[in-house]
């Protein structure tokens, strides 16, 4: 009996320690807005996740410190470690949704897919900024999911458009080979339907190179295949440890780096730096600011990082993924602010937040007001279009830092939008009875 008691006590202590480690305890106050942050600072994807988590946390924390929150109401922030694991992500969701969560940012397509059916039931929107289910851009089918500023299909169309520009026109892609190396998970497989459609339309051959999670740091086979197939361009949809390894392997087989283009999640500073001098010329799409020369980032440094309220290393402020995390929190903050304006309430609910996100209008004037002039392309969400298919630019690694290598490139919305709508209808059919939209449109 004594042993059983000891075991029970030990288990209780271990569980207590585990839970307190996994989630920073917050006291949900009635005069605050609660924002859970699903992050991953550990595991195989921590290399990317840490910077995103820091950026997200620091911007919202800065609003608390500098402005006393949003609309005079403090934000209660709580991080929950998912390890990029769908099961843990759902556990985080279930553990935090009852605390008055306003919005979820899963930072994993796998977790996003799990949360999409729950969002409408629990009345808490999911913001998958530039990732997740592309079809969720159709607000008439997915009123609770937002993937502003772009879907993966938008991104895939931009990269093909850019390659077309390099070749002197999309018509010149006929007969070319474009390789697609991707994390063999929901995330990496997401743009394949669009790439296949574009391959058919423009006559290029799409060569696919899947990289399993277990093979992220062991990609020599994939790159030997690339060497043999001799694609004219390589496109990458990588994340975490996959990115630096892929860039190193590309350097190793002497693939021309100026013809190697990553999605916006393969655009980390550490990713490119891993390739050393050989990585010069590597390109990636981006939709958030390059560098730290923005007044809002100065405020983050002053009010949060220098004040010791963050785990961010000051030298990483302005990195691509850090800035991406900041942009994510800008959208959250603007969603809250808009919801407060629409409802007249200071402390809002998930339903209010959904309306705030649906009425989001981050124009140039507002970006400047936020101290983020030029940090992102102006973005607007409508009830029909929850992504907006906003322009994206290409950045290039010069061996030390990223520099902008193109102007803003519009996605091929004429092609993407009908596909999104078709995919959304198919999703609803497969998941019948999928609820018809009854939510009011704030626009």
């Amino acid at each position, binding site marked *: 009996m004594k042993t059983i008691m000891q075991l029970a006590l030990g288990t209780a202590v271990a569980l207590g320690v585990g839970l307190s480690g996994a989630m920073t305890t917050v006291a949900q106050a009635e005069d605050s807005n609660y924002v859970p942050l699903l992050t991953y600072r550990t595991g195989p994807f*921590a*290399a990317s996740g840490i910077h995103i988590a820091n950026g997200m946390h620091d911007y919202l924390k800065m609003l608390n410190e500098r402005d006393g929150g949003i609309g005079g109401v403090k934000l209660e922030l709580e991080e929950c470690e998912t390890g990029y694991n769908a099961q843990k992500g759902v556990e985080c969701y279930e553990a935090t949704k009852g605390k008055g969560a306003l919005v979820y940012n899963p930072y994993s397509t796998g977790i996003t897919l799990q949360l999409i059916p729950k969002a409408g039931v629990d009345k808490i929107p999911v913001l998958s900024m530039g990732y997740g289910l592309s079809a969720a851009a159709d607000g008439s089918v997915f009123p609770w999911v937002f993937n502003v500023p772009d879907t993966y299909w938008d991104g895939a169309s931009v990269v093909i458009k850019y390659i077309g520009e390099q070749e002197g026109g999309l018509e010149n892609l006929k007969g070319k080979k474009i390789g697609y190396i991707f994390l063999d998970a929901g995330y990496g497989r997401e743009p394949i339907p669009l790439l296949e459609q574009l391959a058919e339309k423009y006559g290029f051959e799409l060569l696919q190179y*899947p990289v399993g999670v*277990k*093979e992220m740091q062991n990609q*020599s*086979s994939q790159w*030997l*295949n690339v060497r043999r197939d001799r694609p004219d361009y390589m496109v990458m949809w990588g994340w975490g440890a996959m990115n630096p390894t892929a860039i190193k392997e590309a350097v190793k087989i002497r693939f021309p780096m100026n013809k190697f283009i990553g999605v916006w999640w393969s655009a980390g500073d550490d990713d490119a730096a891993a390739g050393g001098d050989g990585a010069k010329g590597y390109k990636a799409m981006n939709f958030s600011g390059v560098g730290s020369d923005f007044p809002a980032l100065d405020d983050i440094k002053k009010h949060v990082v220098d004040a010791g309220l963050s785990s961010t290393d000051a030298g990483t402020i302005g990195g691509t993924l850090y800035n991406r995390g900041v942009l994510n929190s800008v959208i959250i903050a603007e969603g809250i602010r808009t919801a407060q304006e629409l409802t007249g309430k200071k402390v809002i609910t998930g339903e209010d937040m959904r309306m705030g996100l649906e009425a989001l209008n981050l124009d140039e004037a507002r970006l400047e007001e936020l101290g983020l002039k030029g940090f992102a392309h102006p973005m607007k969400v409508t009830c029909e279009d929850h992504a907006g298919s906003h322009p994206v630019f290409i950045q290039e690694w010069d061996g030390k830092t990223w520099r902008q290598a193109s102007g803003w490139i519009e996605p091929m919305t004429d092609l993407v939008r009908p596909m999104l709508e078709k995919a959304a209808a198919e999703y609803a059919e497969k998941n019948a009875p999928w609820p018809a939209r009854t939510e009011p449109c704030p626009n």
Partner: protein
Amino acid sequence: MLYDIFIDPFVQMYEMPDFFLQVLWEGFVAGILYALIALGFVLIFKASGVFNFAQGIMVVFAGLTLVGLHENGVPAYVALLLTIGVMGVLAYGVERVVMRPLVNQPDIILLMATIGLTYFLIGFGEFVFGGEPKQMITEELGLPTGSTAFEFGERGLVILQHIDIAAAVIAVIMVASLGIFFNKTRIGRALRAVADDHQAALSVGISLNQIWAIVWFAAGLVALATGIMWGARSDVSFALEIVAFKALPVLILGGFTSIPGAIVGGLIIGFGEKIGELYWGGLVGGGIESWLAYIIALIFLLFRPQGLFGERIIERI
């Protein structure tokens, strides 16, 4: 279809001999690296019958300690020596805290203990070094970096990375040293005695505790060498722990108790998965590497259930 399976791959090998050579080289390097990881498992299994689930995280932990010390201003070679010391302390700690209290417990209990050790090292490693990946200090350790290209005809090219050559040399030195250690030294012979029969070894005055600490230390050194080599090819991050489980099919194939088995098994898996992926993978959409190694191992097991070099177990009832 039959042509694609039985003829075309060989035609490709004939028509692009330089590429085939490159595939063989990559298979050899992968095999050597798998063998290095497998060695760590074999050492501990041989001495204690424990499948050390923590071997993968030991690779990460050793690599992170080395780079972490250097990042804090410790010169590379001093950091290397200190890391060896840390692995020694870890081995002593594991023997005292994990192994000693569990003597004579069923193997499954010891396996669970190493799973616990894995999670402890993950948490401790992340606490001390953070979760961010680190660049291996390849040049600072005097390891070669560049590459040498051999050109054949107009388009033929075989590229050998110097770090891969170094990995092969280090692996050979390591295996030779372990071979001498096991066969020619008093401690090595004691270790083999423990591996054969714990109680018989105890009865002739061999200290189990000492042997276990030594063998965990040796596994720690192998983990350090593996961490340096894998880290130089990609980076040192917690994702490396996953790669370590590539050693499982190697162990199934080579046997859990044989050092030559780890080497031969590693090479068979390395060559097999690269050739399979490059010449037959395309038939099923690629990405077959992760499971092909297990298929190869299972095919071998059909004929030698104890593995290529494993000891045949005969139990009389």
